[in-house]
């Protein structure tokens, strides 16, 4: 592959579209220079990011859109996830204590931990005053 490969998909805030997002990411990982060993992990990181937006970004019954854009080249696999929902900065969420998590039987709150575990960069910005933009980057090794 030479140069940069780019693609994007837009879905609405419904969990039924998570499978569509995963298939989109799987296709691009396979076209990228990333190892096949990274495929499941990258899919998972993006799934967790999109799930957070679906579950927390919008009030119940309010339809919103989520844009997922991928840019990949010889050195990076970069995913930008944009939404117009509630301002939510994952960088503000502390890393959970997993022992406590299990002891308390807490079933939520592990998505951001997974994103950080998997990706080399997890960055958030409030873009143009109207959008949340989360950038996930995996380096090609």
């Amino acid at each position, binding site marked *: 592959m030479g140069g940069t490969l780019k693609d994007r998909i837009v879905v609405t805030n419904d*969990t*039924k579209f*998570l*499978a569509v997002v*995963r*298939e989109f990411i799987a296709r691009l990982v396979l076209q990228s220079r990333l190892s096949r060993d990274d495929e*499941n*992990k990258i*899919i*998972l990181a993006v*799934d*967790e990011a999109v*799930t957070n937006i*679906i*579950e927390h970004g919008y009030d119940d019954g309010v339809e919103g859109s989520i844009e997922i854009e991928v840019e990949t080249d010889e050195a990076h696999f970069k995913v930008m996830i944009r939404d117009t929902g509630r301002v939510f900065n994952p960088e503000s969420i502390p890393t959970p204590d*997993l022992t406590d*998590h*299990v*002891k308390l*039987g*807490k*079933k*939520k709150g*592990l*998505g951001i*931990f*997974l994103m950080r*575990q*998997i990706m080399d960069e997890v960055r958030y910005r409030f873009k143009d005053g109207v959008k949340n933009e989360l950038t996930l980057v995996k380096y090609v090794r």
Partner: protein
Amino acid sequence: MPAFEIRTEPLQNGITLITVRGFLDAHTYEQFEKAFDTVIEAGTYKIVVDLSALDYISSAGAGVFISALDKLRDNDGNVVLMKPTVNVREVFDLLGLSQIFTFKNTREEAVRALQ
């Protein structure tokens, strides 16, 4: 993509087998949780979950196991995860849950671990 499917069947000695196929994410975990809770509410605290046909799990799916674990162990039970696919096992590893849950490769080993 394989269809999402859950099947529950009794094994010997008060053990229940739950087989889940397809994918366990934020879209499907509630159905799985319901099946899990139905087994527990019926008084069964020893559960084997066959993960051999589960292609994908996210933290929403793993959360079902986390939330049930204490209740099962408090009642002298446990959940044994049978034959997870590579992708599913990887997520348990990433979450640091592989030391907490019991994994077995066959139904016989899983049943033995619960007796």
